[in-house]
């Protein structure tokens, strides 16, 4: 375990680039690796320009140079190019319109056909090891002494190595922020001594409490104990708090001077984009953004591969239409592809996954967990997801929904509709008398049934359209939610007439039986990434 090598390389790279920047008249010839270097390069450029006092001459070749090279086609134009192609325009015309080569358009189309996306293929190359702060430091030290040995610079900068706890991963969703924290348990006395004061306090704060502030909760039952991660042993904690409290969290990060810990927060979910700016300006923290769907799929595969307690992670329900005989059955996900992944968070995303890297978002619906909770809050005055679910478990939706038999007196034989099928969700609520007598529990139940039925119906249609027969439901909505999983299983069974089965993920830790954990699966993906990031710093 010798961390010096890659770090040294990184440091060398940064200083070389810097040297090159200083010498180059036109840094734009070089394809800038990162935004940061780009800016740096520009700054250097300006300095040079000012020195020579000859703006015109330096500017002109720049223009020429940029013109010689075909510009990269920006993302919005790629989409448009594809649209024009699908709209029946000739390839040559498309190329002319977006000012690129015909081959580029052809390749774009090819790529879209293969991957369903227009973004570039993932580039090879290691993820960045150094933070911008460290980059800055390396540059400055180079300026101070341009003849310093790389290893010396490296040693000076050696602040960002593996030991730089805390290890965090975040999934900032629409409703909830899911945070995982790795608590190292094998801290040596030496480390203990070295540990910065506020890092210690963070660790103590997070591990000794189960609730933070008004809304933060640590899911103790989900805790993964004695996990080995990058050679360190420790516990993985799962903490969640509402996205609304995000600013308070960032504020806390600032107050506790997080940025001094030289850590990069790995984050995924929409909030990673939304709050990035806030993290930077308010707490001087950089977010390492990870694609949500990548994380989701990796997380799912990771959780499945771990096989907790030797039990398969996946399960389904037998006889979902018969509440008495409804049984949970494990199911092996050895060859998981292709599968339809239905991620039910605040909204719903439906992905067709053909392999680890080959997936596409088929469609989505806005009727998801957020709708359930939102409507329940409005209809019943409840406040939390747990409350809403508890009520839903007790209620009877047939008091709220109009069934086929309420309209036709029995089965609607002409179309093979059973009398017990829901004809109109909330249909009874059209009448005032019924509205006045309805219980909150029934309303909550009806909301849940409506949402799950709808998701089941759409998922089934997508599965048929995509010709995939395996449907896996994940997502925060299914957390501690046996009711929903059963309802979804029923909906799937109903819409597909028994043809398709709904698969769910189980996550059993600490002997307790816990249903579902897309939250885990997702956040774990972040952890996996965090780990990967560090892992790379160890092995050249």
């Amino acid at each position, binding site marked *: 375990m010798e961390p010096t090598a890659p770090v040294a390389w990184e440091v060398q790279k940064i200083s070389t680039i810097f040297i090159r920047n200083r010498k180059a008249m036109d840094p734009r010839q070089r394809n800038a690796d990162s935004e940061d270097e780009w800016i740096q390069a520009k700054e250097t450029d300006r300095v040079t320009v000012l020195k020579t006092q000859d703006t015109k001459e330096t500017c002109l070749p720049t223009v020429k140079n940029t013109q010689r090279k075909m510009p990269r086609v920006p993302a919005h134009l790629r989409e448009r190019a594809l649209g024009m192609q699908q709209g029946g325009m000739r390839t040559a015309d498309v190329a002319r319109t977006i000012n690129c080569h015909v081959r580029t358009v052809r390749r774009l189309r090819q790529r879209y056909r293969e991957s369903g996306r227009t973004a570039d293929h993932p580039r090879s190359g290691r993820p960045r090891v150094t933070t911008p702060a460290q980059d800055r430091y390396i540059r400055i030290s180079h300026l101070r002494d341009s003849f310093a040995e790389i290893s010396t610079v490296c040693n000076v900068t050696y602040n960002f190595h593996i030991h730089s706890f805390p290890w965090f991963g975040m999934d900032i969703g629409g409703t909830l922020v899911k945070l995982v924290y790795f608590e190292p348990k094998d801290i040596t006395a030496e480390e203990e001594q070295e540990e910065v004061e506020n890092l210690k306090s963070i660790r103590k704060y997070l591990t000794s409490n189960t609730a933070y502030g008004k809304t933060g909760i640590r899911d103790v039952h989900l805790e993964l104990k004695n996990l080995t991660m990058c050679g360190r042993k420790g516990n993985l904690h799962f903490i969640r708090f509402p996205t609304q409290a995000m600013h308070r969290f960032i504020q806390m990060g600032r107050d506790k001077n997080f940025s001094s810990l030289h850590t990069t927060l790995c984050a995924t979910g929409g909030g990673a*984009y939304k709050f990035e700016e806030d993290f930077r300006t308010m707490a001087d923290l950089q977010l390492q953004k990870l694609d949500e769907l990548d994380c989701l799929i990796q997380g799912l595969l990771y959780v499945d591969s771990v096989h907790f307690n030797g039990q398969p992670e996946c399960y389904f329900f037998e006889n979902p239409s018969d509440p008495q005989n409804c049984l949970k059955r494990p199911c092996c996900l050895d060859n998981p592809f292709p599968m339809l992944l239905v991620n039910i968070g*605040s909204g719903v995303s439906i992905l067709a996954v053909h392999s680890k890297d080959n997936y596409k978002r088929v469609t989505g619906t806005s009727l998801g967990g957020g709708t359930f909770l*939102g409507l329940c809050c409005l*209809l019943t005055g409840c406040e939390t997801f747990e409350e809403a679910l508890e009520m839903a478990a007790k209620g009877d939706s047939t008091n709220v929904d109009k069934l086929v038999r309420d309209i036709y007196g029995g089965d609607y034989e002409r179309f093979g509709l059973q009398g017990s099928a829901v*004809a109109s*969700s909330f249909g009874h609520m059209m009448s005032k008398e019924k509205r006045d007598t309805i219980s909150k529990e029934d309303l909550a139940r009806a909301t849940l049934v409506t949402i799950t*039925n709808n998701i089941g119906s759409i998922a089934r*249609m997508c599965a*048929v359209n995509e010709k995939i027969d395996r449907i896996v439901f994940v997502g925060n909505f299914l957390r501690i939610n046996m009711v929903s999983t059963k309802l979804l299983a029923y909906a799937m069974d109903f819409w597909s007439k028994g043809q398709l089965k709904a698969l769910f993920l189980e996550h059993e830790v600490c002997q307790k039986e816990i249903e579902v954990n897309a939250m885990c699966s997702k956040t774990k993906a972040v952890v996996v990434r965090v780990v990967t990031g560090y892992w790379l710093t160890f092995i050249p």
Partner: protein
Amino acid sequence: MAASGQMKRSSHSMDKSIILPPDEIFRNLENAKRFAIDIGGSLTKLAYYSTVQHKVAKVRSFDHTGKEAVDEPLYEISVQEEVTARLHFIKFENAYIETCLDFIKDHLVNTETKVIKATGGGAYKFKDLIEKKLQLKVDKEDEMSCLIKGCNFVLKNIPHEAFVYVKHADPEFRFQTTQPDIFPYLLVNIGSGVSIVKVESEDKFERIGGSSIGGGTFWGLGALLTNTKRFDELLQLASRGQHASVDMLVKDIYGGGYSCLGLTGDLIASSFGKSATEDREFSKADMAKSLLHMISNDIGQLACLYAKLHNLNRVYFGGFFIRGHPVTMHTITYSINFFTKGEVQALFLRHEGYLGAIGAFLKGAEEDTDPNQYSWGENYAGSSGLMSVSPELYPMQRTRSGTFPFDMLEMDRLDRQLVNLPLLLDPSSYIPDTVDLTEDAMAREYWLSCFEEALDGVVSRAVASQPDLTDAKERAEKFSQKYQHKLKTLRQQPFAYGSLTVRSLLDTREHCLNEFNFPDPYSKIKQRENDWALKFFHKVVKSLESLNWEERQFSLVKGLLAGNVFDWGAKAVSDILVTDPDFGFEEAKQQLQERPWLIDTYNKWIERLKGPPHKCALFFVDNSGIDIILGVFPLVRELLCRGTEVILASNSGPALNDVTYSELQILTERIAAMDSVIQSGVQKEQLILVQSGSSSPCLDLSRLDKGLATVVRERHTDLVIIEGMGRAIHTNFYAALCCESLKLAVIKNSWLADRFGGKIFSVVFKYEQPCK
């Protein structure tokens, strides 16, 4: 008749006794038979079949033997009673059902009727009431099959039935031309729940899916959330709200768009998502709007998925959730566009509310004669148009006005079955009308005023045509009022009867005239002009024969064009004809524009004539009098001489001074007696007379008499000549045929001439050959 029915529904405050205007609603009840009723959640639709006695102008040749007297007119005109079949559909609110049933009972004379077909959710609720009041046996029919039957019926028989809704366009409705083959299509019926039905043929359909999230969910959940009781109020509430304050949008999660998945920031990520996380009060309007979006999007998404799965691109939406509500039409359209990226269009139906009633009626009617074997046409005079689109006006206006709110559709049985002209290049893309006045506001304004100004003339002409009937004046006054009212409606709602065109304005006028028993106001004029022109026939033919070939061809065309000037439909001409009785054939020739004409492909035509003769020419003729006798017949004669067979197609029924089939028969007989070429043509069946099946001054090549189509096909027609402003300019100007075509007309309207960049009496001579 004052109805004393007790109104039990207290939620509607209305007069307990409503006097029904019998000449406006439930018309022709005396002969009514075969009732059908569709009782929905809030509206009742009643359908019945009835026969209408119409006065029809008939012409009959005098029994001439030997030489005819010079003073005697050519033929006699008599007005006869003719019975035509008509379907009546009436829609009114459920609250009036008792009043209406009483009214029907009092007016129903025909006692043959024993059964009433009923459908809809409310059918069983009102079963006893109907049986008690009408003493008819209620026979329940399946709702969905009625719906589909009705849908097929309107799609087949009403052009411009389906439309696309575009919210910010003016007007919001884009009517679709009916495809010759209406199947297969997807019908999404959004009632309390949603049913998605795939219709493959007349009898074959299948419910391929559905959803419980539908109108009932909107109403029920909306009522719970906003404490608003009525559906219409909920919709109004929704149209005022902002969904973004309740829904969690993509940008609320991502801070902006999520470009790598192609999700824009304004997309709804989670409906009602904010109500879970934000601790505040939400406005009722916002919640209603969010709910509307949630349901519309969901239905749109499902419809798209089903359309994709079954590979269908025609998706019609119906049900009380849609029923003309612009708000829901917009959200559904939006959602369909979003989910299919514009590949599938959301289509709505103009008579959507009647489908169930039409279907139930047809089911009953099928028991003795199948109405599907006839073609039917919408009667513009008796039908109310599409209601106003503004949500503020729609439900309230009707209740406030205090009159009995109802909506009607009447369909006339046409004597003949109508089909496409087999020579159309692409029947599915054929649009008869040249200008769509719904979209062209300037043209609309002009034509509406033009028809308004011409109304007085039409009224006086109508009165003059029936000098011996005392009530003519009164009826003409009524006609004037009715037509004026129609024009007023059309000015406000140009989309009321589908795409507004000059043709539909003319047709509406004909329908209204018929309504008040003015079957053929121009019959006398036509008779006089025919008489007069016949006298010159011989002379014209003689003078033509004296010319050499080239001169003769030109003279023939010029004669045809000059003849076409004599058009009582054009105000400019009728003014001249009234003031200057000596205005004749030669004067008309002088009025014509000199060559080069406005559209001039004469040289091409001459070149073609120098080639081999045509096999068979189909000739759509226009006016009677000089036009037909001195313009058309000489040309027909020339064609016959060349060895070309000629099919003369004339209107089945009267319209303006256009020559009708029966008149043309007599005229041909007369001319044949004078001219040997025509005579031998008739005898050898080289000259055939057919009727076009229409009674309009314009021409819709997709709705022609089946007999005509058969003859055209049998004779291998390779030339179509369309004459006159109504047939060749207002309609068919751009019609593409798969054979040669010649469209000629004189523009007798300065505004229209202006538009074409010419002057009044400019000539359009458009000879086209199909692209090879």
